[in-house]
């Protein structure tokens, strides 16, 4: 039985065959060219990228470049938050959470033509787990002492064994861009949809389509559709907005609320509010015993009653409405409701009740005298809130909180500091009383915040590096976090972390204020964009985007 193709071949005259072949080639070429003629996407990075080495990424700008150029084994779909195959067609995590095996795609090459194989994965892991690297990507995998073993079973099969269980092991590989072991271009040889073509320090980075990118669309056309991406380095949001309005930029991530509202009036189709993001803004008090602040203030700050009263006296609805123009939601706890898997839905936002807050403080020995609140020893309740200068949302929140607390007789001084000075007070001298800062959550998994919740950690902001937990509730949090980190049972992990969230809401070491919405702007010339809450928000599906002629 002849195939349709064979019948077709026999029925065509030889000269006709030549014409047909020529036409086919021409059509295929044109189709290829048209499909891939996706234009140039332009947007801004808000700082200079510190590195092009994907293993050393620890800033947003470098992270954006890694996302666009790096080939990963598995990819978290930013829209569905589900894990999808990347360079690995399939994977399996062992029951004890210590081993992961990948089956890799074959016939894939790096951007300089060097073939990709399991050896490259092994090489990448070895580089990543080098103790001298000190990168956040590598440290995420370090669950215990000991070496990581990689076993190359075949050119398309590899297994990696860790010394201790790693919670959420498979999802962590979303951040691991594979390096070539053999390419002379080192980290500049990439497996992602784009590759760095030109870099003008302080000015622009040009990414061009990777001709060897492995992915195709359903019609078999090679991705990405875009020819190139131009990234301009521009820290100033006002200038970024000006350029977007002039048509010089195609996307804005993390759009300012004022600009969102203005654009929404003139060009509503260009702006997107993807809802509550994973980010949170919080206030916390200095609970470090060895801090140089007066002892009576330490007593206030270390009292859960005091912290809860402050939390109750803050009008979060106004913070959301006034500071963020409604593009934020009162925060409930450590995780945003946008984190569908891990958010404890039983938790409710703290209600605003200054009268109740004052009653609680009075029951704890505080009293009002001539409009000023005083503690039981007669000390007037006055403290300072510091935050980083230049972040207008935090500055405004601080002023609103200052006004809210004035209503219950508490005098607050708002001090804005440059970021290094603020970090120095927060992590070294502990010479501060209260701080407003935010947490940018890139991970859905709570294991990414292990160093925030463990009392012995550096990032246990309100009282870091405790030799032993100083309170029973911190000891309980330590136990629960370690339990969830060492388990591969999602249900058990969720239960443990739910309880952590409940304790945090009860004790308020962080007074969670709001979860900002993920706001963005996308030019009408861009097709295929579907902004989401997970970073990189607007260009998470860059390989599918096209930009029409302007």
């Amino acid at each position, binding site marked *: 039985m002849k195939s349709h193709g064979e019948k077709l071949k026999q029925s065509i005259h030889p000269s006709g065959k030549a014409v047909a072949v020529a036409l086919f080639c021409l059509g295929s070429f044109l189709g290829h060219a048209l499909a891939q003629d996706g234009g140039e996407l332009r947007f801004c990075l808000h700082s200079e990228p510190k590195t092009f080495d994907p293993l050393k990424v620890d800033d947003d700008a470098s992270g954006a470049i890694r996302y666009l150029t790096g080939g990963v084994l598995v990819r978290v779909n930013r829209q569905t938050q589900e894990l999808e195959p990347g360079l690995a067609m399939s994977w399996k995590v062992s029951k004890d959470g210590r081993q992961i095996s990948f089956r890799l795609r074959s016939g894939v090459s790096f951007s300089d033509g060097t073939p990709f194989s399991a050896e490259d994965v092994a090489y990448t892991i070895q580089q990543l787990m080098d103790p001298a690297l000190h990168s*956040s990507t590598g440290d995420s995998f370090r669950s215990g002492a000991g070496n990581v073993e990689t076993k190359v079973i075949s050119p398309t099969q590899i297994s990696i064994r860790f010394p201790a269980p790693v919670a959420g092991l498979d999802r962590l590989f979303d951040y691991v861009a594979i390096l070539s072991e053999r390419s002379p271009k080192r980290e500049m040889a990439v497996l992602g949809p784009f590759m760095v073509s030109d870099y003008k320090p*302080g000015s622009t980075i040009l990414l061009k389509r990777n001709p060897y990118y492995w992915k195709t669309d359903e019609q078999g056309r090679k991705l990405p559709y875009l020819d190139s991406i131009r990234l301009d*380095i521009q820290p100033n949001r006002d200038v970024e907005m000006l350029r977007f309005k002039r048509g010089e930029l195609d996307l804005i991530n993390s759009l300012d609320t004022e600009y969102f509202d203005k654009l929404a009036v003139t060009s509503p189709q260009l702006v997107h509010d993807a809802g509550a993001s994973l980010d949170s803004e919080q206030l916390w008090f200095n609970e470090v015993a060895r801090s140089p602040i007066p002892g009576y203030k330490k007593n206030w700050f270390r009292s859960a009653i005091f912290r809860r009263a402050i939390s109750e006296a803050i009008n979060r609805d106004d913070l959301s409405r006034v500071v963020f123009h409604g593009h934020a939601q009162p925060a409930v706890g450590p995780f945003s409701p946008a984190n569908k898997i891990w958010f404890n839905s039983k938790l409710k936002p703290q209600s605003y009740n200054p009268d109740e807050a004052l009653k609680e403080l009075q029951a704890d020995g505080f009293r009002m005298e001539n409009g000023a609140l005083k503690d039981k020893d007669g000390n007037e309740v006055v403290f300072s809130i510091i935050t980083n200068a230049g972040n207008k949302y935090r500055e405004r929140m601080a002023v609103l909180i200052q006004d809210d607390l004035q209503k219950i007789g508490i005098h607050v001084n708002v001090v804005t500091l440059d970021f*290094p000075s603020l970090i120095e007070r927060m*992590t*070294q001298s502990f010479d501060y009383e209260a701080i407003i800062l935010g947490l940018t959550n890139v991970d859905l998994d709570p294991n990414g915040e292990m*160093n925030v919740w463990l009392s012995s950690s550096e990032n246990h902001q309100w009282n870091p590096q405790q030799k032993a937990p100083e309170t029973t509730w911190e000891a309980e949090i330590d136990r629960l976090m370690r339990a969830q980190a060492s388990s591969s049972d999602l249900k058990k992990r969720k239960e443990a972390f739910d309880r952590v969230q409940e304790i945090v809401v009860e004790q308020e070491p962080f007074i969670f204020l709001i979860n900002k919405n993920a706001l963005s702007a996308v030019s009408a010339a861009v097709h295929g964009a579907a902004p989401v809450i997970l970073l990189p928000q607007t260009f998470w599906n860059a390989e599918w985007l096209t930009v029409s002629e302007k």
Partner: protein
Amino acid sequence: MRSLRWKIAGHALALLATVLLGGLFSATLVRLAPGFDVDERELDPHLNATSVQALHDARHQDESVLRFYFSYMKRAAHGDLGTSLALGQPVRTLLRDRAPLTLRLLAVGLGLAWMLTLTLALSAAWLRLSVYDTLTTVVSGTFLCLPAAVLALLSVLWNVPGSLAIALIVFPHTYRYARNLLVKAYSRPHIITARAKGLGEARILFWHVVPVVTPQLLAVAGVSVSLAVGAAIPVEALCGLAGIGQLAWQAALARDLSLLVNITILVTLVTLLANSGADVIGHVIRGQEA
């Protein structure tokens, strides 16, 4: 001739000593300012204790100011200006790549500023019309009251070069000095006499006024270089120009000691050369006048 050579050598040595002192003071200021010992990356919750300690250790390499500065000078003598902590690149490369843009920006900006200054100041002094003087005062006062960041943003908004923003930042300063010096020069008794005797205005201006005020105007010119260098920081940062001003701001935020010391030395050198040049030319003109 020999004494002239010794004089020049002496001046050059004094210049070098001042520049090196500038570097040392700059290093001291940066080192002692709070926030030097910390790194923003410490706040990354993914980093473990060992990595955070490694970040601390990297900063503490520059713990002693004197030790840092002497080792810096030793390396600088071989052309190694150190590596930027913030950008991870050799300082020499960074400065070499960015200096031409900043120099161009400053040269054009200062040129425009002085064109505007001399045009308005000379005409104000020459015409001595109160309406004109009022107008120029209001115009220069308006630009003086506009924040540099706003002028930089306006240049982006109107798509004009950043050098125009620099010119508009510098011009109000130089205009007022220049205008006052010229008015004073015009009020000298011999000028009044010359006018009374019917000497032409052009002759009065170029033969009797300009030589008198030139040394002071040159001093103002020297100072305007320093003003322009300061203005370059917000202009480059906002206009997205990859020059030394932008680099200086990044370095200040990151407490990047190597970069800051080198930039200070560069700025001190430029300031000294500009002001010394102005002084020398001023001396020559005063000598000729005498």
